[in-house]
C-alpha cells in the first residue's frame, strides 16, 4: 500500500519544485555541501580510537530510548523560517461554486484552512467542509493508484490507453461530471465536445441546483442562478430551504453573513429582519426562524401556489394564480405572509429548497419578481459554465441510452453516480453496457469499482485549478503540496482524454488566464495568486422579466398540483458528510448534526406524534440513546433506519439523510449508517408520498452528544423578542431572568461595588490586574446560527483527535467547543436554540482549585491554562467544571487517531506543530488558542523592542472566531478600552453563563433576540 509514498516529494518553494540549475547553484553557494564534514584523514590510530569508543558505548545503547533522527534543512528554502507558518491564498471548489481560502503552511505542509478576507464568498470565514478539507487531503484511504479492471496500473498506461482509445473521435462518448465552475475546466470541456463529434456532457450533482435553474428557466426563460442578499431584506420567507448550512446551499457562508448582518442588534433602536420558515424537517435554518410553520414537504408546493394566489390579486405578473385556490387558501399564514410581503416590496426574499420541483422555484422566482425583489434582494446571474439543458433529464436520458447500448465510452469526473444516482436509473447496470468506463475519483468508490479505468484524483489542496465563486468571483486554486498519492486533477485528466497529452495543471490554468490578461500577464497573475481573488471578474446581475410562456406554464402546473394524504418520506443531504463525499472524513463524521446532535449515523427524523403512532420507544437520559429501527419501504425498496424524534418535525413526515452506509471506501466511512439512496428516484428527489413505514421493534444504538434537550427552567440561554428587548433592555441580567437578586449583590453593595461579578468592575477598580493584556471572549447568540463550523475549526487548530462512534456513544467526545441545542416550548412545535460552549476561562476557576497537582492554573493574561505534562488525570477538574467543557483522554485517542493504518505519517502531517498532542490520561480543553495568543504576544514584544507584550487590537483571532461565518464570536484584550470586545461586553444583552456561581467567566454571551410576527405566535 505505502510503497508509493516512501519518498514523497514535498517541496517548499516553486524554485525547489522546479529544481532548476540556478536554484541549485544558489543553494550550493549559500550552503556548500560538505562544509562541516571532518576533513582529517582517518589514520589507523584514530580509527581504532573511534571504534574502541563505539564498542565500549555499544552496551549503553540498550539503556536508551530508540534513536529518532531529526533532519534539519541542509539547504534552507527561501521564505521559510522554521516555526513560522506561511500563508498562501487558494480556494475550495464545491458544487459549482468556490470559497476563497488562505492556507497555513508549516514547513511545507498545509495545516489549517482559513477564509480569505478579500474573497466575497468567504469574507474571512469558512464553512465546515472548508475546515474539514484539510483532513480529507491527508486521508490515507484516498486512492493511490490508477486501476485498470481491478488491477493496479499506472498513469503512463492510462495515457497510452487514452492516446489509442480517443484517437477515434467518432466514438459515442458520454461525460458525466460534478458541477465545476472552473473556467479552465469549461475550456477543456468545450474542447472535448468540439473534438468528439458524438459526445455529450451531463453534469450530475445529487443535490445540485438543477431544479433552481429549471425554475428560473420556466419563470424567466433563462437558466439563472438566484443570489440572495439577506441584509437588504426585512422579510425573509423560506420554503424548506436550508440556506444557512453548506449542505443546503453552497453559498452558506455568504448567506449566513448577510442574514446575521440583517439581524444584528446593538441597541434598542436597531431593527432586525423577520424570518418565516415553512418546512417539514426541522433544519438548522428553520431553527433560526422567527416564525416557523411545520408543513410536509409534499404540501409546500400547494402552499407556495396558494401564496402566489393570495398575492396574485394584488401584484402584476401573478395573474395566472389569481383564480387558484387549494386547501391552504385562507390559511392564517398565507394571509399574514401576503400582508407582510406586500408591505415590504423590494425588501423581501422568498426562497425554496434546492430539490423542490422546478415549478415551485418558478413560482418563487415569479413572486420575487412581482414583489420587486429581483435585482434588489435577489439577483439572478447567468452561469458561464453550465449546459443549456435540464441535467437531471439528461442523466435519465443517458441511462436509457446506456441501456440501449448507444454509448460506447463513459467518462466520469469526480462524480459517483453508482452510489448517488436515483435508484430507478440503475446506473451500475447501465454502465455495464458501455465498452469503456473511465472514472476520476478521490476514492476507489462504488463507481470506480464498476469502471474499466479508475484514475486517482488529486485533492484541491494538491493541484492547480481555478473557478468562479457562487457570485462569480474568479480565483486560482494554488496547490499547497505535491500530490501525496500522485493523483491528477480534473483538468489534467480531462486534458489527457481530449489531447492524449500530459500537460501540467499549472500550464492549463495559465493558458486560460492568459486570455483574461492579454497584457502584463505575469504581474496580474501574481496578484491573483497572492490575493486569491480576481476582482475584475464576477457574474453581472441579469435583467430579468417574466417570460411570455410563464402564465400558460403556471396555469398548467397549478392545475396538475394534487393534494396528497398520509405519510411522506423526505430525503436530504447530510449536514456533515453531504452526499457521502465526506464520509471518510473523521472530523465531519464526528461533528454532531446541528439539530439532532447525532454523530456517525443517519437517522429517520420524525415528530413525537409520528413516533408515537409508530410505537417508537422514546429516548432520553437513562436509555443510552437506544432507539427502534424502522423499516421504510418505497416501491420494492426497503431500508431499515434508526428512528429519531425531532420535536418540531412535521407530522406524518419522515426525513432521512443520505451519504452513509458505504463500503470499501475507507476505515472511517465503512459500515457507518445506512445507505438511503435506494429510496430516492428520479421522481422523488426530495420527497415521496408512496411510502410505508413500520417499526421493526429492534434496538439500535445511536451516538448522540446531547441527551437532554430542555433547559429545565434554568436561564442558560437567555432570549427575548425584539419587542421585549425594547421594553426591558436589561432582560438578560440575572435579576430579570430569575426575578431575584444576584447572590452576593448585597455584599458587593456594602463594599461600594455596583455589581459583584462584572469583569469590568474588577478591571476598572481596585482589582485591576497588574498585567496586560487580559483576554476575553463574547459570543453573540443572536448572530450564531448553530452550524458547528467553530467546532471543526477548533478541532483542526488544536489537534483534537477523532474518537469514533463507540466512544462518542459513551459520552467521551473530545470537542473543545461544542454547540448546545435546546428546545423551548411546545413539544410538537418548539423553538430550537443554539449555544456554543467553549471554556469560560473563569477568573475564579473551580477546576484550578481542585487539581491536586496544580496542572491547571491561571496565566497572567487571564487564561485558564492546562499543563498537559503535569496532569495526572484525576478528572476532578472536569467534575468541578460547571460548564463541562473539559475533555479527558480516557484512552490514547491521539495515538489511535494518528498512528492507525500502514502509513500514519500522513495524518500526522495535518497536525498543528504549535499544539501538543495529548497523551492518554490527561485532561484537555479550550485554551483561547493560546498558541495564537502567544505568537501575537511575542510579535508585539519584538515590534516594541521588549516594551510591551500587548498585541494590537485584532492581532489575535481564535480559530473559532476566525471560522465563524456569522461573526458571532468576539475575542480580544479587555484592558484595551477601545477594543471591540470591551464595547461588545458593555452591551446590555451581555450576560455570564451561571453567573450566580461567581466563577467570573471571561467568556460571556449576548442574549438572543427573535422578531416574531405576533399574528402568527
Amino acid at each position, binding site marked *: 500500500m505505502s510503497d508509493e509514498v516512501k519518498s514523497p516529494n514535498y517541496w517548499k518553494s516553486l524554485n525547489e519544485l522546479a529544481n532548476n540549475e540556478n536554484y541549485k547553484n544558489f543553494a550550493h553557494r549559500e550552503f556548500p555541501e560538505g562544509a562541516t564534514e571532518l576533513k582529517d584523514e582517518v589514520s589507523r590510530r584514530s580509527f581504532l580510537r573511534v571504534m574502541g569508543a563505539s564498542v565500549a558505548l555499544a552496551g549503553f545503547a540498550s539503556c536508551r530510548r530508540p534513536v529518532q533522527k531529526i533532519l534539519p534543512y541542509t539547504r534552507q528554502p527561501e521564505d521559510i523560517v522554521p516555526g513560522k507558518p506561511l500563508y498562501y491564498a487558494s480556494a475550495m471548489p464545491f458544487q459549482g461554486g468556490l470559497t476563497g481560502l488562505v492556507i497555513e503552511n508549516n514547513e511545507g505542509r498545509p495545516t489549517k484552512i482559513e477564509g480569505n478576507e478579500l474573497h466575497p464568498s468567504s469574507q474571512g470565514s469558512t464553512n465546515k467542509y472548508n475546515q474539514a478539507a484539510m483532513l480529507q487531503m491527508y486521508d490515507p484511504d484516498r486512492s493511490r493508484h490508477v486501476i485498470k479492471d481491478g488491477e493496479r496500473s499506472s498513469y503512463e498506461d492510462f495515457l497510452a490507453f487514452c492516446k489509442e482509445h480517443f484517437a477515434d473521435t467518432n466514438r459515442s462518448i458520454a461525460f458525466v461530471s460534478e458541477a465545476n465552475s472552473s473556467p479552465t475546466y469549461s475550456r477543456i470541456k468545450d474542447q472535448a465536445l468540439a473534438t468528439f463529434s458524438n459526445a455529450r456532457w451531463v453534469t450530475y450533482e445529487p443535490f445540485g441546483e438543477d431544479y433552481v435553474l429549471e425554475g428560473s428557466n420556466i419563470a424567466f426563460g433563462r437558466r439563472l442562478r438566484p443570489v440572495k442578499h439577506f441584509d437588504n431584506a426585512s422579510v425573509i420567507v423560506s420554503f424548506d430551504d436550508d440556506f444557512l448550512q453548506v449542505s443546503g446551499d453552497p453559498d452558506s457562508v455568504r448567506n449566513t453573513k448577510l442574514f446575521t448582518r440583517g439581524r444584528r442588534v446593538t441597541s434598542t433602536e436597531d431593527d432586525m429582519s423577520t424570518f418565516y420558515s415553512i418546512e417539514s424537517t426541522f433544519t438548522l435554518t428553520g431553527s433560526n426562524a422567527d416564525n416557523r410553520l411545520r408543513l410536509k414537504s409534499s404540501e409546500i408546493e400547494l402552499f407556495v401556489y396558494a401564496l402566489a394566489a393570495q398575492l396574485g390579486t394584488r401584484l402584476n405578473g401573478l395573474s395566472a394564480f389569481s383564480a387558484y385556490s387549494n386547501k391552504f387558501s385562507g390559511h392564517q399564514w398565507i394571509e399574514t405572509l401576503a400582508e407582510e410581503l406586500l408591505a415590504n416590496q423590494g425588501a423581501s426574499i422568498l426562497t425554496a429548497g434546492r430539490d423542490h420541483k422546478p415549478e415551485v422555484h418558478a413560482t418563487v422566482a415569479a413572486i420575487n419578481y412581482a414583489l420587486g425583489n429581483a435585482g434588489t434582494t435577489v439577483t439572478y446571474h447567468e452561469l458561464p459554465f453550465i449546459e443549456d439543458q435540464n441535467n437531471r433529464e439528461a442523466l435519465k436520458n443517458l441511462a436509457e441510452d446506456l441501456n440501449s447500448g448507444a454509448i460506447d465510452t463513459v467518462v466520469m469526473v469526480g462524480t459517483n453516480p453508482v452510489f448517488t444516482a436515483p435508484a430507478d436509473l440503475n446506473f451500475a447496470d447501465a454502465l455495464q453496457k458501455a465498452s469503456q468506463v473511465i472514472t476520476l475519483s478521490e476514492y476507489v468508490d462504488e463507481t470506480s469499482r464498476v469502471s474499466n479505468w479508475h484514475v486517482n484524483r488529486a485533492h484541491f489542496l494538491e493541484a492547480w485549478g481555478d473557478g468562479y465563486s457562487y457570485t462569480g468571483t474568479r480565483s486560482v486554486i494554488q496547490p499547497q503540496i505535491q500530490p501525496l498519492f500522485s493523483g491528477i486533477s480534473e483538468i489534467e485528466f480531462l486534458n489527457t482524454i481530449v489531447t492524449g497529452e500530459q500537460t501540467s495543471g499549472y500550464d492549463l490554468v495559465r493558458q486560460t488566464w492568459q486570455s483574461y490578461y492579454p497584457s502584463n500577464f505575469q504581474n496580474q497573475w501574481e496578484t491573483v495568486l497572492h490575493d486569491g481573488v480576481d476582482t475584475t471578474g464576477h457574474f453581472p446581475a441579469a435583467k430579468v422579466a417574466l417570460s411570455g410562456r410563464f402564465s400558460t406554464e403556471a396555469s398548467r402546473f397549478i392545475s396538475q398540483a394534487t393534494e396528497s394524504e398520509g405519510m411522506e418520506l423526505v430525503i436530504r443531504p447530510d449536514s456533515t458528510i453531504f452526499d457521502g463525499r465526506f464520509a471518510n472524513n473523521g472530523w465531519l463524521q464526528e461533528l454532531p448534526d446541528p439539530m439532532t446532535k447525532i454523530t456517525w449515523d443517519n437517522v429517520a427524523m420524525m415528530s413525537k406524534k409520528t413516533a408515537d403512532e409508530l410505537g417508537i420507544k422514546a429516548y432520553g*437520559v*437513562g*436509555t*443510552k440513546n437506544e432507539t427502534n429501527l424502522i423499516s421504510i419501504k418505497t416501491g420494492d425498496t426497503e431500508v431499515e433506519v434508526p428512528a429519531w424524534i425531532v420535536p418540531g418535525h412535521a407530522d406524518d413526515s419522515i426525513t432521512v439523510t443520505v451519504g452513509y452506509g458505504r463500503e470499501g471506501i475507507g476505515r472511517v466511512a465503512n459500515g457507518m449508517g445506512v445507505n438511503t439512496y435506494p429510496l430516492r428516484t428520479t421522481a422523488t428527489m426530495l420527497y415521496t408520498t408512496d411510502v410505508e413505514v413500520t417499526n421493526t421493534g429492534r434496538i439500535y444504538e445511536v451516538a448522540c452528544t*446531547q*441527551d*437532554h*434537550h*430542555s*433547559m*429545565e*427552567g*434554568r436561564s*442558560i440561554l437567555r432570549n427575548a423578542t425584539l419587542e421585549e428587548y425594547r421594553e426591558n433592555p436589561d432582560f438578560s441580567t440575572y435579576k430579570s431572568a430569575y426575578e*431575584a437578586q444576584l447572590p452576593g449583590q448585597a455584599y458587593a453593595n456594602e463594599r461600594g461595588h455596583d455589581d459583584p461579578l462584572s469583569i469590568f468592575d474588577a478591571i476598572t477598580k481596585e482589582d485591576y490586574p497588574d498585567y496586560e493584556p487580559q483576554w476575553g471572549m463574547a459570543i453573540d447568540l443572536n448572530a450564531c446560527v448553530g452550524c458547528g463550523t467553530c467546532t471543526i475549526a477548533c478541532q483542526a487548530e488544536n489537534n483534537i483527535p477523532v474518537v469514533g462512534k463507540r*466512544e462518542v456513544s*459513551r*459520552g*467521551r*467526545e473530545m470537542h473543545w467547543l*461544542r454547540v*448546545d*441545542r*435546546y428546545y423551548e416550548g411546545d413539544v410538537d412545535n418548539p423553538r430550537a436554540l443554539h*449555544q456554543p*460552549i467553549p471554556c469560560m476561562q473563569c477568573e475564579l476557576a*473551580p477546576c484550578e*482549585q*481542585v*487539581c*491536586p*497537582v*496544580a496542572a491547571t492554573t491561571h496565566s497572567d493574561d487571564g487564561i485558564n491554562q492546562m499543563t498537559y505534562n*503535569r*496532569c*495526572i*488525570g*484525576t*478528572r*476532578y477538574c*472536569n*467534575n*468541578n467544571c*460547571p*460548564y*463541562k467543557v*473539559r*475533555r*479527558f*483522554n*480516557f*484512552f*490514547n485517542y491521539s495515538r489511535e487517531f494518528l498512528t492507525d493504518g500502514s502509513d500514519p505519517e500522513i495524518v500526522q502531517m495535518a497536525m498543528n506543530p504549535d499544539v501538543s498532542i495529548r497523551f*492518554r*490520561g*490527561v*485532561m484537555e480543553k479550550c485554551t483561547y488558542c493560546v498558541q495564537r495568543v502567544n505568537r501575537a504576544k511575542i510579535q508585539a514584544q519584538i515590534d516594541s523592542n521588549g516594551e510591551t507584550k500587548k498585541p494590537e487590537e485584532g492581532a489575535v483571532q481564535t480559530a473559532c472566531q476566525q471560522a465563524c461565518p456569522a461573526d458571532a464570536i468576539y475575542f480580544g484584550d479587555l484592558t484595551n478600552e477601545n477594543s471591540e470586545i470591551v464595547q461588545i461586553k458593555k452591551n446590555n444583552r451581555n450576560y455570564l453563563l*451561571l453567573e450566580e*456561581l461567581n*466563577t467570573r467567566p471571561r467568556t460571556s454571551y449576548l442574549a438572543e433576540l427573535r422578531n416574531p410576527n405576533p399574528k402568527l405566535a
Partner: protein
Amino acid sequence: MSTDYKYVPDPALVKGDHTFGSITDLIARIPLSPTPKMWYLAFGISNILLIALLGTVGYLIWEGTGIWGLNSPAGWGWAIVNFVWWVGIGHAGTLISAILFLFRQGWRTAINRFAEAMTIFAVMCAGLFPAIHVGRIWVVYWMFPIPNQMAMWPNFSSPLLWDVFAVTTYFTVSLLFWYVGLVPDFATLRDKAKSRAAKISYGIASLGWTGSFRNWWNYEKAYMILAGLATPLVLSVHTIVSFDFAVSVVPGWHSTIFPPYFVAGAIYSGFAMVLTLMIIARKIYGMEDIMNIDIMEKMNIVMMATGQLVAFAYFIEGFVAWYSGYIYEQGIFWLYVTGPYSWGFWILMFCNVVTPQFLWSKKIRRNIALTFVISILVNIGMWFERFMIVVASLSTDFLPSSWDYFSPTFWDVMTYVGTFGLFFTLFLLFLRFLPMIAIAEVKGVMPQANPHNYDDETKEFVDTKSEPVKVQQQTV
C-alpha cells in the same frame, strides 16, 4: 415515696464458664492448630478474586481508565464510590478500639481486634482506588509533597490532596494501634507455640515482651496515647473524604452537612460490616461466648443510632434543597428522586432508612439471622448512597446539555469484586495466623480480673456465675 436503689452489675461480658486459661486456649488454639480445610477453600476463592483484581488493574494501567464506564459529566464512577465505601467501612475499627476505649466501654474487647483488622484491610482496599483511578498512574507520586526537579509542590488547596494525607495518616495510626494491641498476644502465642517457625515469628513480632510490670506500664501508656491520637482521626478522615465533594461546586456535593453526615454514615456501614463478618466468624471459630448476643445487640444499637443520623441527613438535604431556593440543588434532589438514577435512590432509602427501623425491636436486635440480613442491607444501602452522590450528582449537573448516563462496564464490576478478593485474602490470613480477639484485653473485662471482687454489700465474694440481680422497686 422513696426508692431503694440497688447496685445492678452489667451482664457478664464473657458468657460461659470461662477462666483466663480457657480464654487463652479458646483464642490461641486457632493460629496454633492445623489449618482447617474450609479455610483453604475460602482462601482459594479469595485468591481467585485477588488475581482477578490484579489482572483488572493491570489491564486498566495498560489500556487507560476508558475501560470503565466513565464519561464526560461523570468523571468519577465506581472507583470513587468504592473508595468512599471502603473507607467508610474502615471506620468501625478505630472507633471501637479508640473512642470506646477512652469511654471505658468494656464490651469493645470482644470485637476490637477483629474490627481493627477489618479497618486496616478496608483502608487498603480503599487506598487502591485513588491510586488506580488516575489517568497516568506512573506519576501518581506527584500528589505527595516530595522535593523534585520541577520545583513543584502539589496544590495544597485541593481536597484530593487533603484526602491523600488523611487516608495515609489514618492508615498509619490504625496500623500502629492494631500492632501495639497485638504485642502481648504475640507473646502469648510465642509461649504456646510448638513449632519452631511459629515461635520465631511470633517471638520477633512480640518485640521481646516478657509480661513484666514495666512492659505492661509502657503498653498501657502507648495504647492510651494512640487511642488519643486515633480518636480525632476517626472523625477527620471521613470529614476530609467528604470535602472531596463538599468543597466542589457540583450540586448534590456542595453541602455543609457532608462532614457529619459522612462520619455517621461511615460508622453505620462500619458496624454493619463488622456484624456481617462477626456473625460468620463467631460461628465457625466457636467464639459465641465472647462475641455473644449482648455485644451484638450493643452494636445493633449503635447501628440504629447512626442509621437515624443518616436518615436525618437525607431529610436535611431535601429540606435545604427546598429552603435554600438554589435551583440546581433543588434540581439534583428532584432528579435523585425521579431522575434516571431514581432506582438507586429508592434502594438507598429502603436499605438505609427503612431497614434500621426494625432495630427498634429488641427481639430483632437479638436475632442473629435478622441482624445478619440487616447488616448486609445496610452495606448495600451505603454503597448506593455513595453511588447516588458521586454518579447521579455528576451526571445531571448545571447544564442539561451535558447530562449523560453512566453505565458500568464489566471492568467496573471486576475492580469492585476484585477488592473483596484483596480484603478476604488478608482477612483470612488474619483469622488464620493472628488472635482474632484481644486475649489480654478480654481477660481484663472478666470478673476474675477485678481485684475488688469482694462485695461490701453482700459481704461475700462475687460469684462469677451468679445471675444478674433483679431490680426491685420497694415502696415504703
